[in-house]
């Protein structure tokens, strides 16, 4: 266990510091570090304390949520390719928000609850479409169903945006994932939702890890697979819904983080979850810092970076011998 936790902690610490030190604007690392140490000029103080700290905190929350959600979803679906973005969970959340705004609500009044419901619907649809039964399920079925669903929801979102200009303006923020410009207020709103998700994920970790043996074996060991899965879905919905409400849909984090965690500590779900708590924020922070630095003075949206990192990881998972059907 030590093998995984310490390096992850170290990486997280470095990532947090980097997030505070670097930015797209004028405040360079030296001035930023001065602020952290207690001094620094006014501009630097503003940049670090008013902009970067909140952004870092939001990124940590989002990374944590998506990393955990990915691990839980993969256990519930028994599929290392199950990722909230790929499966349409994030798309479901965005779509729900877009529909609500188009139906008349203003962007400000839409809270995370809508996103959570949308995420839950997306998750249930994807899992339902794949018709999970015992072991020997075709893992690709789920992935294709999820891709179809996510494509469907994106298309639906585009259609609504096309027909409703007002919504399009208000909703731009929800359709492209980014932690830029997010403040502590957002964090305050989604905090409780995320916390609930983390708690449920923790409670359901042991039953879910037994699912890896197949439903019948798990049942003969005294677990209740259906209930474990349902709780898993609830956790995923809360975590992803909250994350989309805070930062829009960010894909692939839920794929990359559990993949790295499993490489560090093996397949046991509880260990993986612990490491995801640390690696999730680290990955998102690293991606966010990259988004600030790659095209200075502009910023690349976070979703683009995570997709660019995630695609090779997807390829790596596919090419690893662990998926015999491939």
């Amino acid at each position: 266990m030590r093998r995984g936790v310490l390096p992850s902690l170290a990486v997280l610490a470095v990532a947090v510091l980097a997030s505070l030190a670097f930015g797209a604007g004028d405040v360079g690392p030296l001035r930023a570090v001065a602020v952290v140490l207690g001094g620094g000029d006014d501009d630097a103080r503003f940049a670090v304390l008013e902009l970067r700290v909140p952004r870092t905190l939001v990124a940590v929350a989002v990374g944590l949520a998506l990393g955990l959600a990915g691990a839980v979803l993969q256990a519930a679906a028994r599929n290392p390719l199950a990722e909230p973005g790929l499966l349409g969970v994030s798309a479901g959340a965005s779509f729900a928000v877009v529909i609500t705004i188009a139906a008349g609500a203003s962007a400000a009044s839409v809270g995370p609850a809508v996103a959570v419901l949308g995420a839950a619907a997306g998750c249930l649809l994807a899992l339902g479409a794949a018709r999970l039964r015992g072991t020997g399920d075709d893992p690709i079925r789920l992935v294709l169903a999820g891709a179809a669903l996510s494509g469907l929801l994106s298309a639906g979102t585009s259609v609504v945006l096309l027909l409703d200009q007002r919504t399009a303006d208000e909703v731009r923020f929800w359709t492209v994932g980014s932690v830029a410009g997010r403040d502590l207020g957002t964090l305050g709103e989604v905090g409780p939702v995320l916390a609930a998700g983390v708690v449920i994920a923790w409670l359901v970790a042991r039953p879910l890890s037994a699912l890896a043996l197949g439903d019948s074996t798990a049942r003969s060991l005294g677990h209740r697979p259906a209930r474990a899965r349902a709780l898993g879905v609830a956790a995923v919905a809360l975590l992803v819904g909250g994350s989309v409400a805070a930062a829009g849909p960010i894909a692939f984090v839920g794929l990359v983080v559990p993949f790295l965690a499993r490489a560090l500590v093996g397949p046991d779900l509880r260990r993986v979850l612990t490491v995801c708590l640390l690696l999730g924020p680290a990955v998102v922070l690293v991606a966010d810092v990259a988004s600030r630095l790659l095209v200075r003075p502009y910023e690349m949206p976070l979703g683009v970076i995570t997709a660019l990192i995630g695609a090779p990881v997807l390829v790596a998972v596919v090419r690893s011998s662990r998926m015999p059907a491939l």
Partner: protein
Amino acid sequence: MTATRPATAPATPPPGTWRVAAGGRSVLVDRRAALAATVLGVLVLLVVAVSLAIGTARLSVLDTLPAAFGTGETRDVLLVQKLRLPRVVAGVLVGGALGISGVLLQTLARNRLATPDTVGLNDGATAFAVASIVAVSTSLAPSALALVGAATAAALTLGLAGGAGQRGYRFLVVGLGVGAALGALTQLMLARAPIDAANQAFPWTVGSLNARAPLAIALLAAGLAVALPVAVVLGRQLRMLRLADAVVVGLGLRVARVRIAVIGVAVVTAGLAIAAAGPLGLVALIAPEMARKAAGPRSVAVVGSALAGALVVLLADLLGRTVAAPLELPVGIVTAVVGGPYLLWLLLTTRTRRIP
């Protein structure tokens, strides 16, 4: 050892097929598939006639087909040939190509959800086309770049996947990743582009039959002329791939070659279609479904899927032009709106995803 057999034994075709033979050569045609294709063909002709008739100036349906060939009142002929026929022809070709691509990929993967949309072809084409409009200035038309984009996405996918994999699965999943990355790039470009350029690039994100480059259409027609017979042959071989790999190799089929060929033809037809009309989602999904329901599970209905694809695109275009007149909804929007719920229904109600 060949058994000695009377040379005059009849060649009774297997039940459900017709045998067409001449001088030592013979071809088997599945009865139900042939009938389905005929019915679909007739439907396509009908919808073509109706499509040519409807518009800001209404023509009688009976006049449209002759007008398309040049007979009738000059005014009608002009209207039909110059304005509407190109659009309708484009629709038929695009739909046909997407239908072929869809049926090939679905049969290969034995999964109805395996379509060129899922594999990143659309995303690749869109990314390159959008890039040519908003980001990079080149002298090549967006259509050409769309084709390059689709080909690049496919090549990238095939290269990263290291081959087709069983049932083409590796190709499909890696295609998802590549598609996502390219989609992200498109989002980036659109977000940073000035509003005019973004609006100009918009049709390339959604699929439309409006004012398409004639060169792209011509290229599509040529490609389809070659691809259709090849696809029919591949369809026969794909039927055999439904058996276990070891059996099929024992029967003398070069399995890996067939898989690559299927993916190749699917990519080329879809790529040409996207270059001509932009990313038209869901056609490649729905058309083979329709064809399969009509033709039955025994054959791989390549011709039927092509015709069904043409039908879907034409109907969607017709709907888009009439439902919100005088506003014109792009075909891509209509297929998304109508196809979407159908896809959802498909996802939730079918018991197995296997194609028999």
